[in-house]
């Protein structure tokens, strides 16, 4: 106890020395707080991104393997087509079998079949055209009479020169030809329309990505209904609108007809697809419905072969390769392969990862320099206090206790400085890190609103309104952070949740939709991203404390070695 008392007295009586040490520790603490906060924020952003952009695996045609198979044995084109037809499609049972894996969080799939439709004009360029061209060949004979002056310049039809001349023109031949032109649309297949069935919003990637946007109505949330959405082009061509019905016809059996109610009309928003000469977008003839509806068609006609495209949500990075191996083991045909979007995700978070790496490097450098400076200052301090050590040792204080007193002094100064440094650092880092987070939160909210709009749920005006509210909320959160330093973690969570709820309720009141109608759309949980506002949290404070204690111990180690090597007699003799 007396060691602590003596340490406090020593600190109080040697203000200059301790203020100098304190300033150094404050600088280290500020740097550490900022870098730790940035690192933590970067981590959270990466985690949030990874949460909303989950690792997905799918099964695709293995073209390399397929081509080598088709080329094998010098096949004719007909044989190649036959061989291709013999490769069996992946069945729903197989997908379910692959999906029931420890490495898979969830999975979904889409069904696609080609169908015809009654009284529905296909949006296509493949028309048989008969073109009549009338070609008129005209020959002109020019006769000029001069009444004096220069001859005309500029050839036939040139300006008439002044001075009395006269020109006469005569048409001699006229021919008419008829040309038949046939344009093929290879995509038309056996049925003119592609009927695509989804089993959840999560599976509707085109709407999530914004490739398709609802311009009228909405995508039905009932995945067991006879509802559909059609393209704007198809709707315009056939004068269809939301609430109208269309009749689907089995291409192999005209007597099998099915009625679909249009709940929404979408437009394709891609800029890269199609060429300049295409009149319609590639999705013009897509009719989007649900899997269950397609299954009812398939039940009536077993000859219709759907293309099933699966998507498996993989648990974590480590599971990607394991899942791929497992699928191969379960018997996936060699003409198919398992692909994933891991590289895409890693590329997307690369810049944030770089920020994290930079922050970590900066932290290490700061700690190294800070540690060395502290050790040096401590050594100088020890040399200055050699006499004090000599006296304490002479009056019987053990080396360990002298070391403990010096360590206590440094620890007290260190903790006080860390508290000041952490406060300053948190104030500064709130601005830096929240800037990063604010963008992220705003992006997430924008994304949510955009997707909501893509599905026909919500409008641009509302989303922009919500965005401005988000900004305000983010600012509120920043202010709250400073307050929450004193409050408990639970309180902080409650406050954040309240903010989220406020945001939700404001958004809901605008759209006049009940709370349950908020859909996840298979993306992120915007609420979770929103809660990454606590920049300097308890974890960072603990890390700072750890750093402070470590620095104290390291620099005290030098002190202890010095104290153990000091001979009190020598010190006192030097003094005398």
């Amino acid at each position: 106890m007396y060691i602590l008392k003596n340490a406090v007295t020593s600190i109080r009586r040697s203000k200059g020395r301790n203020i100098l040490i304190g300033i150094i520790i404050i600088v280290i603490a500020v740097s550490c707080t900022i870098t730790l906060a940035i690192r933590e924020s970067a981590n959270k952003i990466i985690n949030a991104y990874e949460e909303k952009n989950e690792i997905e695996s799918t099964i695709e045609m293995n073209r390399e393997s397929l081509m080598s198979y088709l080329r094998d044995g010098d096949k004719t084109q007909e044989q190649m087509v036959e061989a291709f037809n013999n490769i069996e499609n992946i069945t729903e049972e197989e997908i379910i079998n692959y999906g029931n894996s420890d490495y898979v969080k969830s999975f979904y799939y889409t069904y696609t079949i080609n169908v015809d439709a009654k009284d529905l004009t296909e949006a296509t360029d493949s028309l048989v055209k008969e073109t009549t061209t009338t070609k008129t060949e005209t020959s002109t004979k020019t006769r000029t009479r001069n009444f004096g002056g220069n001859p005309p310049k500029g050839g036939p039809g040139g300006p008439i020169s002044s001075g009395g001349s006269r020109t006469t023109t005569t048409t001699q031949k006229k021919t008419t030809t008829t040309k038949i032109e046939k344009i093929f649309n290879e995509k038309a297949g056996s049925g003119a329309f592609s009927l695509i069935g989804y089993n959840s919003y999560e599976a509707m990637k085109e709407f999530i990505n914004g490739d398709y946007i609802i311009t009228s109505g909405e995508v039905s949330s009932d995945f067991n209904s006879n509802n559909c959405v059609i393209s704007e082009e198809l709707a315009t061509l056939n004068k269809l609108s939301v609430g109208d019905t269309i009749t689907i016809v089995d291409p192999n059996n005209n007597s099998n007809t099915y009625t679909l109610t249009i709940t929404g009309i979408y437009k394709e928003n891609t800029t890269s697809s199609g060429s300049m000469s295409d009149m319609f977008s590639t999705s013009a003839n897509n009719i989007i419905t649900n899997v269950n509806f397609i299954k009812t068609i398939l039940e009536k006609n077993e000859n219709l072969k759907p293309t099933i495209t699966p998507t498996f949500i993989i648990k974590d990075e480590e599971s990607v390769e394991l899942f791929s191996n497992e699928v191969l083991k379960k018997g996936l045909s060699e003409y198919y392969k398992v692909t994933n979007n891991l590289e895409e995700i890693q590329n997307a978070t690369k810049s944030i990862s770089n920020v994290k790496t930079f922050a970590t490097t900066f932290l290490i450098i700061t700690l190294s320099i800070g540690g060395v400076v502290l050790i040096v200052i401590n050594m100088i301090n020890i040399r200055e206090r050699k006499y004090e050590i000599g006296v304490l040792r002479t009056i019987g204080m053990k080396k360990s206790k002298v070391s403990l007193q010096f360590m206590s002094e440094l620890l007290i100064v260190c903790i006080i400085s860390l508290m000041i440094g952490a406060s300053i650092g948190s104030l500064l880092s709130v601005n830096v890190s929240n800037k990063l987070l604010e963008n992220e939160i705003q992006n997430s909210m924008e994304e949510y609103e955009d997707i909501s709009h893509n599905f026909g749920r919500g409008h641009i005006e509302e989303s922009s309104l919500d965005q401005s509210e988000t900004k305000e909320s983010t600012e509120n959160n920043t202010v709250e952070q400073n307050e929450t330093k004193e409050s408990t973690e639970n309180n902080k969570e409650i406050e954040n949740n309240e903010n989220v709820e406020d945001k939700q309720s404001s958004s809901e009141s605008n759209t006049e939709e009940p709370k349950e109608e908020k859909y996840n759309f298979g993306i992120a949980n915007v609420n979770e991203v929103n809660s990454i506002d606590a920049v300097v949290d308890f974890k960072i404070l603990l890390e700072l404390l750890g750093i402070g204690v470590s620095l104290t111990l390291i620099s005290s180690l030098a002190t202890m070695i010095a104290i153990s090597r000091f001979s009190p007699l020598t010190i006192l003799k030097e003094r005398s």
Partner: protein
Amino acid sequence: MKKIKNEENNTNSKNILSIKNVNYRYKDAARDEYVLKDINYDFEKGKVYAIRGRSGSGKTTLLSLISGLENKYEGSILYKNKELKKMDLDLYRNTNIEIVFQSYNLLPHLTAEENIILSMDISKVKVRDKNEKAVKLMESVGLPKNLRSRRVLKLSGGEQQRVAIARSLSYNPEIILADEPTGNLDKETENEILDIFIRLAHEENKCVIIVTHSSNVCNKSDIVYELKKSK
């Protein structure tokens, strides 16, 4: 508090400290270049001893051997018949012996009172009111009460030496070693300090060993040992 017990006396039972055939040379000195050679002294409680000698005769070295600050010597130094080398020297220094230096060796950032209390803390002295005891000790060496909260650097040489003596009495040691305690003081103050040492020896039964050049100190001491430069 651990106290060193009296063991069976091999020589004179009154001896608290015995130096037997002690030789000492510095680390960097030649093999036969001894500072102290064949030293044999006995010290009893209740007496004032003066050790005198010319400069370089090894007076301060002898004092550091007795105090346990240096223990690489030949021969033996016995404290109550127990070999000093085998003892916990930190405990020995903060319980049984106290050193008063010519340069006082007080902690400059502490007050007079705090210096005394720190010594009591290190020695783990159990006193109900350490402040009160410190003031009493200060008064016993002739220091007024009002100096208790003054930093030692603001005290005069005589006052600092009194604080050093008061500190040495704080844990009631049996031996008080003093290295030129009056070297920095005027004649009058020297006499006052000497009187305190004599009182401590004669009235409080302490063994006081003073290393000195001063003939005044030698005259007032009970026994004088003369150290001669070893050949």
